[in-house]
């Protein structure tokens, strides 16, 4: 079920800025990504095991580290910024994160206020 139009180059297909970007011979980006993710993982683990910071500080920092790792995956492994057309996928993903955040933060707010008032 490939294409349903006549061959029609005018929409969508903006070219990637540098089509050669994919013809590198050594996977620098991937190695960088891997190293970063290891560093971030162990940093979070270290924070937790060392118990050096107060509880809230630990939780906030490890969540920040997790978000950084998410960015590593998205940018270095998943080629998020690679565009072969309009950046719809980025917008969709951003809206997805907005909704996800609303759900998690909203539910926590609602349910914890509820606990505090009634339990």
């Amino acid at each position: 079920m490939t294409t349903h139009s006549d061959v029609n180059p005018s929409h969508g297909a903006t070219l990637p800025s540098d089509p050669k970007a994919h013809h590198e011979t050594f996977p620098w980006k991937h190695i960088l990504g891997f190293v970063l993710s290891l560093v971030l993982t162990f940093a979070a683990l270290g924070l937790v095991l060392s118990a050096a910071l107060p509880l809230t500080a630990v939780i906030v920092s490890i969540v920040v580290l997790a978000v950084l790792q998410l960015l590593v995956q998205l940018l270095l492994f998943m080629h998020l910024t690679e565009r072969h057309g309009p950046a719809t996928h980025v917008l969709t993903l951003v809206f997805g994160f907005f909704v996800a955040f609303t759900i998690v933060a909203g539910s926590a707010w609602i349910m914890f206020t509820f606990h505090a008032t009634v339990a």
Partner: protein
Amino acid sequence: MLPHYFNHLFVTGTDIYIADVLIILTSLGIVGVLTYFKKWKWLWREWLTTVDHKKIGIMYIIAATAMFFRGGMDGLMMRTQLAVPNNHFLGAEHYDQVFTTHGTIMILFMAMPYLIGLINVAMPLQIGARDVAFPYLNAISFWTFFFGAMLFNLSFVIGGSPDAGWTSYAPLAGPTFDPGPGENYYLFGLNLAGIGTLASGINFLVTIIKMRAPGMKLMDMPMFTWSTLITSILIIFAFPVLTVALSLLTFDRLFGSHIFSMTHGGMPMMWVNLFWIWGHPEVYIVILPAFGILSEVISTFSGKKLFGYSAMVGSMVAIAFLSFTVWVHHFFTMGAGPAVNSFFGVSTMLIAIPTGVKVFNWIFTMYRGKIRFTTAMLWALAFIPTFVVGGMTGVMLAVAPADYQYHNSYFLIAHFHYTLIGGTVFGVFAGLYYWWPKMFGFKLNERLGRWNFWTFIISFNVTFLPMFLLGLMGMTRRMYTYPPGLGWSHLNMIETVGAFGQAIGMMFLAVNIVWSIKYGERDVTGDAWDGRALEWSTTSPAPEYNFAHVPVVYGRDAFWDMKYGKNREKYQVKAKPYRPIHMPNNSGRPFLMSLAFFISFWGFVFKWYLVGGLGLAAVFVFMYLRSFEYDTDHYISVEEIEHTEAAAGRL
């Protein structure tokens, strides 16, 4: 477990027996007719295996119409029961099942598929595409919806219907209070249909982003296509929430987990929370496409451009954002504290603003127009005052402290029938009359259409207007009966009369369809209403490939522009030679795969894990087979195109 279920496998009761008999007779009738006319092969080749968006759209519409009648029958049964105090027409248990199936069917198996059907029919044509982005997936969407609906409806005769309301609040819907299979039907039926809906959302979004005719910028798209785009985004982000909520409750019921239970630390309120995180966007999912239809119809029959195009787009974007930040207004009375209630109350009120922008722009689209009162237009016009009543009472509900007095009362019931019928259903009917010639090549009769319209709209108000008052008098929803002497009786009787009036109104539609099939005015031009968007530029019904040449677009209202606009000359291009058109192959797999889903989920409903497991395995086998299939499409030859175009009088 098994023996218990077996005892209750077939639901008993006179009305159920009648229903059983009717169902069996209808099925036999269909089988008989198909066999007699040797139509089995035709049915399979032309419909069950089709991946053509127009046919899929039509199948959605047929199924949704059937569901409207089913849901409407539920409505009539409820109204009959409530006509007089202390009535014994339906018992409590039966009544509870009826409002549950009524609400669920109307929203998930009537409103949504109607709109998705119309989207399928019109949207690809409006953007000048040959099909949706993923036609095969489109077929899967339809068949999962269809079998989901069938599974849900099966509960009526085998096992018993769910009876905890369409909102299915735990713990009432949990295993302790509701051990029977009815609630499982609800969970599995909705989950199956939900898969298809999510897929539709993705499909439409990609279609609109990637497959617009050359030259058509986003801000050139017809407003119905815009509303589809925004709706798709809402679907994509709301439906996973429903999936999770349903699955969690399924786990509680089948595997003894304690997410929503009253013991072991579960939190019933979490169900309410998740349900409405989906539920509120859901009401916009069923209203935004109706808004889109309205924009098309009003602008066509006013003979004018849509007023405030960019404001119309902007307001939908705003609605989409806000719709994810208001869900608590469905449970202001659950004690989440004044800060939470204030925040969600105010955010809810804010939605009035973008919605108002739309309302005023529709009204001003008629300003300095030439209004033709066709049936489609009548439905669209009736939408405005009716929906405004629904919307304003919505804003009254958003006033949290006032909602303490309205919540779960008939005031609420009135609110949402004004939005759901006055908005969604009127919108659907406007769209149905409007696109009918595009779907079938002939118009519905206008005279019968007016009868349909006027009986329905008057009866509608007779039914639902008194409900506001009843709510203020303290009548709550989901009461199977009420005592005399409360001042409720007259109003209830009036409402019941209204409900039967609506049924008569709908009979006119049925009559109209049958009459018009035989005698309806044929549409030979393809442009039945002097339309504005590209769907009117091809024949009625459109050929399999939609457009022999994909049109090149120079701005908004492309077809109007082509006919009368300033770009008229640009559109007058010399006839190019045809080229072979690349189209997807039909496939029986979406049907079979969804059937496997159906069997599997039916097994789970009764906790027959073997059936459930085998069915799921079959689903995976179908997916694997698809992955290994490489021959998925074909070309339509130039000769065939020439032949079709000549038959349509275009050569």
